[in-house]
């Protein structure tokens, strides 16, 4: 019994669902058609809701009741014996016969529940919907309907406003644009599709071809494309006015037309902005600016190059230069290398890999490699080329024991093992400054390090002094510390040394090497027994150097005692002495100068001048007036504003020229000058005057003109009789 009722309820629900689906399908189909025809989502949604509401209200599915279902079943399912209605009756209210029939019918209904069918139009509706949608879709792509609505519906923002140039009786209906279409064809190398827009403000690539197609609702006498100073006539074909130009530079344009009754109209000013093709952007990954390799180790440089361009890259390569030898015997070899990854031209973005093996480049120890990556885009006729900065690579030379630092690599990679006296002072001061913020242990350690450096410096100067006992002892001291005879030899870039400029031959070092512990200055010393008598330096210098070393001793002492502040004065003294020694060396150079013989003043300019003539030069310098027409136009507009004069043909010509001058400025700062330019263009075309526009033009022109400096000028002055008398009286006095 209950089951039978459930069946009836389900049937009711199914029926309602079918009906609603029908309405929904139908309205959906119509909405899709609407969308395809009008290309407007909101209209389509609105339409959908509208149709659906109407349909639902018409069919009223909520009014279907169980009794309707019962009668439907009675009608369609024969075995039900027109008794389905009994199922709805309350059992208690029925007589026995009815109860029996109810039970039977309930049983039958269960058996025949699959036979309950509702007549529906779902399939026809689906078919109809499909047909409609397909038809609309076809119309959409073929554009059958579009001439009237579709794409030609010019967006509100793109509607072109025209201003009448002469006073026209009100009743004349001004021609209107019914269709505007601008197609932009980028240069062929870009492989960009043709774009079309209805927006009159354009931004295009340099060299693009732009075609305006403008259709009016009336026939016109003439339509002009006013581009900068040029007026280009638009050709009339296929019911529309069109003109094609190649955009080479930014400009402004407007459209002017004359209707059949000879009334002129001018549009607002639109910008035609051009942008250039950007050069490719190259990024190198995984590469240091400088790299050096041991001769016996692997000599491979691995890096990735990422190339990007706005319209495609046509070519990329690695340009490598190998330099061999040094000094005058240096030789260069240039090679153009390709990437390991295959380069595919005309791609906008690419990632290329390269493993550069220096051995393949036949590089030997001491040789240097300079290379950079170069990429070209596909711009025509002249491609944009960009390149990375140069990267350096060197194979260390094992033969030369000189550390190949400055000079050879173009960058000073000298390690900071060795500190000059000046550097020592700077470091000591830095240490003192940092004292509060660092641990005592670290402070002491750094002070000790400075002490060591101070010692090393002293040893270096000691060598120059040729102090036998001292030099020996220091060398031993150094040995204790570093286990090397001369730990600094490799790292010395001796700025503080008295021998910085190689004034004194340093060959004695070689002697030292050869002869082991013997006096390094033996060859230069006259008195072999007495190192004090070494002739490396003049006596005064020698004593100064000694003094400097004594100061260094003291400086080192305090550094070792962790009292850098006490050490500083000694360091300064040492630095001062070293400077003096250097300067005294310089003075020596200065003395080898050229002393010109004195000039005999009485003989001067008394040579033969027969063949020398006068020199004459004649030049006409053009006046560099920046904006002559703008200035003139400003003065003229001011007069037109104040007086009741009429605008003349000459005025309009002048305004046109002024507008072209202003356009140059406006291209750079459109927001500032566009309104002015528009007003001037209008005035230059119009037959009558508009005070508001004149005001805008004057104000804009005035602010656009640069301020002027006062310049010398001829003046007039009328001297009255009285003035003359006065001047005469003054002169007599």
């Amino acid at each position, binding site marked *: 019994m209950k089951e039978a009722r459930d069946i009836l309820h389900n049937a009711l629900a199914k029926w309602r669902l079918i009906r609603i689906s029908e309405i929904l399908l139908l309205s959906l189909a119509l909405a899709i058609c609407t969308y395809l025809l009008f290309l407007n989502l909101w209209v389509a949604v609105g339409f959908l809701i509208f149709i659906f509401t109407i349909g639902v209200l018409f069919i009223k599915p909520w009014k279907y009741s169980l009794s309707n279902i019962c009668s439907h079943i009675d009608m369609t399912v024969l075995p039900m014996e027109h008794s389905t209605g009994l199922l709805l009756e309350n059992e208690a209210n029925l007589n026995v016969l009815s109860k029996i029939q109810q039970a039977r019918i309930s049983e039958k209904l269960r058996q025949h529940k699959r036979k309950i069918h509702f007549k529906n139009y779902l399939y026809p509706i689906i078919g109809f919907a499909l047909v409609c949608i397909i038809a609309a879709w076809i119309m959409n792509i073929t554009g059958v309907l579009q001439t009237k609505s579709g794409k030609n519906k010019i967006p509100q923002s793109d509607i072109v406003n025209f201003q009448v140039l002469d006073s026209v009786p009100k009743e004349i209906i001004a021609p209107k644009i019914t269709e505007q279409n601008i197609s932009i064809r980028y240069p062929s190398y870009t492989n960009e599709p043709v774009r079309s827009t209805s927006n009159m403000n354009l931004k295009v690539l340099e060299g693009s071809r732009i075609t305006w197609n403008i259709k009016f609702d009336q026939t016109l006498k003439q339509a002009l494309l006013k581009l900068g100073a040029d007026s280009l006539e638009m050709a009339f074909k296929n019911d529309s006015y069109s003109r094609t130009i190649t955009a080479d530079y930014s400009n402004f344009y407007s459209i002017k037309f004359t209707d059949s009754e000879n009334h002129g109209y001018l549009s607002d000013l639109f910008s035609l902005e051009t942008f250039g093709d950007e050069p490719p952007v190259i990024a190198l990954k995984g590469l240091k600016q400088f790299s050096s390799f041991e001769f016996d180790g692997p000599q491979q440089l691995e890096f990735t190059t990422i190339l990007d361009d706005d319209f495609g890259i046509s070519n990329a390569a690695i340009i490598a230069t190998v330099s061999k030898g040094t000094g005058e015997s240096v030789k260069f070899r240039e090679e153009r290398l390709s990437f390991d990854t295959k380069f595919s031209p005309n791609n906008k973005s690419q990632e290329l890999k390269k493993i550069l093996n220096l051995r393949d480049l036949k590089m030997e120890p001491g040789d240097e490699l300079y290379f950079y990556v170069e990429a070209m885009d596909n711009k025509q006729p002249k491609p944009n080329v960009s390149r990375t900065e140069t990267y350096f690579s060197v194979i260390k030379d094992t033969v030369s024991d000189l550390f190949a630092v400055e000079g050879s690599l173009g960058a000073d990679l000298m390690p900071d093992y060795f500190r000059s006296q000046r550097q020592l002072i700077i470091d000591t001061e830095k240490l003192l400054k940092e004292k509060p913020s660092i641990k005592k242990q670290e402070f002491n350690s750094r002070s000790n390090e400075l002490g060591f450096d101070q010692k090393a410096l002293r040893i270096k100067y000691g060598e120059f002094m040729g102090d036998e006992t001292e030099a020996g002892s220091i060398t031993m001291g150094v040995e204790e510390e570093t286990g090397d005879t001369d730990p600094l030899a490799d790292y010395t870039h001796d700025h503080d040394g008295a021998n910085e400029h190689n004034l004194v031959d340093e060959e004695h070092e070689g002697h030292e090497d050869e002869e082991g512990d013997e006096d390094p200055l033996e060859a230069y010393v006259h008195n072999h027994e007495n190192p004090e008598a070494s002739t490396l330096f003049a006596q005064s210098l020698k004593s100064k150097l000694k003094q400097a070393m004594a100061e260094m001793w003291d400086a080192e002492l305090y550094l070792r005692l962790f009292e850098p502040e006490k050490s500083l004065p000694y360091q300064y003294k040492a630095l001062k002495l070293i400077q003096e020694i250097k300067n005294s060396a310089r003075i020596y150079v200065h003395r080898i100068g050229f002393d010109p013989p004195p000039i005999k003043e009485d003989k001067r300019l008394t040579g033969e001048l027969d063949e020398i003539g006068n020199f004459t*030069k004649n030049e006409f310098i053009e006046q560099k007036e920046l904006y002559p027409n703008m200035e003139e136009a400003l003065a003229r507009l001011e007069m037109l504003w104040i007086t009741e004069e009429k605008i003349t043909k000459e005025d309009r010509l002048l305004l046109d020229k002024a507008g072209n001058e202003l356009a140059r400025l406006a291209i750079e700062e459109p927001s500032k000058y566009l309104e002015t330019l528009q007003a001037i263009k209008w005035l230059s075309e119009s037959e009558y005057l508009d005070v508001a526009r004149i005001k805008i033009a004057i*104000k804009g022109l005035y602010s656009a003109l640069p301020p*002027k400096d006062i*310049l010398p000028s*001829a003046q007039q002055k009328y001297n009255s*009789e009285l003035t003359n008398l006065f001047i005469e009286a003054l002169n007599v006095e």
Partner: protein
Amino acid sequence: MWNSEINFEHVEWVPAISISGFLLLVVFLWKEWKGVHNRSFYINSFIGFISILSLGLLMLSPTMMKEVKGEAVLLTAGYAEEQLDSLYKSNGRLTTINYTPGMDLLTQLDSVNQLLVMGYGIKDYDLWQLERQQVEFIPTEISEGIVKLDFTQNAMVGEDWTVEGLYRNPREKTKLVLQGPGREDLDSVLLTERNSQNFSLKANLKVKGKFVYKLQIKDSTGIVIENESLPLVVEAKKVLKILLVNEFPSFETKYLKNFLAEQGHEVVVKTKLTVQKYKFEYFNTDKVAIYALNTDSLYEFDLIVFDDKSLNNLSRSEQSILAKSVLENGMGVFVQQTEDSFQGKNALVEFETIRDNQTTLQLTNWPKNTLEKFPVQYSDTGLLGIPIGNFAFSIKKGKGQYGSTILKNTYQLILDGNESQYREIWSRIITEISRKSEPSGFLKSSNDLAYLNEPYDFSFFTKDSSPMIVYKELYQLPLIKDVVMVDEWHGTTYPKKMGWHSLVSEKDSSIYSNFYIMDGKEWNTLVNARTLRSNKRFFSLSNSKPVIKKIPQILDRIWFFMVFLLGMTYLWLETKLRNL
């Protein structure tokens, strides 16, 4: 003959009446004559004469001057109502005259010997009507607004044009805004002082032409209270012809020459290269050989720049030609100091200097930049010396000028990128010293603000004996020659339209003057303040003693009639009595 106090109403009848009276007397005497010189004949003759005289006078109606005693008050704009009320209280017989500019005051003041003027006063062009009147001026002071204004109406492109003035009793946060063409704000000043504040507004003049700038007065909320016009004629710079003579090439001259040539001036440079060999450079002008200075070659130049050495190396005749050219033609000579030789004399000019041992100088307009200078400063205190800023000096000789500067190496300014300062220094020096060409005439007006339907007075200076001035290319204006000055002529016009107007000399159209006519409402406060000042001056100068004012009055004719009647009666009675 006649006492000036007595006159006749019918003066034109005097001869006719005298003759007929005389004839009547002759007839009378002939009738009376009885051949006897008796007493009655004499008496009758006398009586007859008296009667005829009376009859004659009766017909001629004699008048006699009589002193008038009337008081009136002339009410001009801005008079105080309360003051007028108290005047009425003290003197009920006061007649009131309301002043309108340009009205005929003379007739109205006929019967008035005591006049009170109240308010801001009467217009300058009406003052003459009160010249012979005893006037007591009761001024009303201006309470608020611009009471003084100073600006030039003719300026050059590039100049910093200034508008200066005095604002009386500004309200809090009143703002003055100077607006340029197209009502572009150029400069503004906020008035902060309570009583009176001087203000100065500046604008760079970018463009030549005729413009009307505006001065707006805004209150603290930014609402425009007044919007007044400032007419301005901006003229373009004119080309100078300049000769530079140097004993040796120098950077100073090189940069100066480039600067001048780039500005379009005609520049000739003569630089000595070696003995008798020169380098001639001509910019913007044709080649003209200049070896020695002579009157013809000098005549063309507006300015000659010599370095001190080349000036001293001039021959005696060249020096005298140069001196004459300066004195009579108004040419300018600029002496470039090549070294510190200010103490040294030269034949033409001497600049008095004193040592100050300062080697740098700052210009007032450019306090940030320090310029190199010679360690001297100018000390000339004579009447003919004119300092140019604090860096140069000029001495007037006749019509021309000599100039020099204590600055040295000014080209350094260009190298440092301070071209503006370089331009200003040299523009001031060159403009000041170079020849001022003398036009054949000169138009001048004392009215800096001209109004619709008000007289516009102007003066025309010319040596021409019959000058003519054309107004707006329309008609000629009559001119009156000045009483004292030989070359000054005066004229007046009454503009009927607002806007720009022009006056042009008919004989030389290069002599012209542009003026702007504005609406009578503009600059109201200023005009009132000016009227007040001129009225105060006028009435304080005019006669303060009471003027005895007399007007002729006809003597009562009944008296003559009575005398005549009595005479007739006597003569009639006398015969009757004698015959008795």
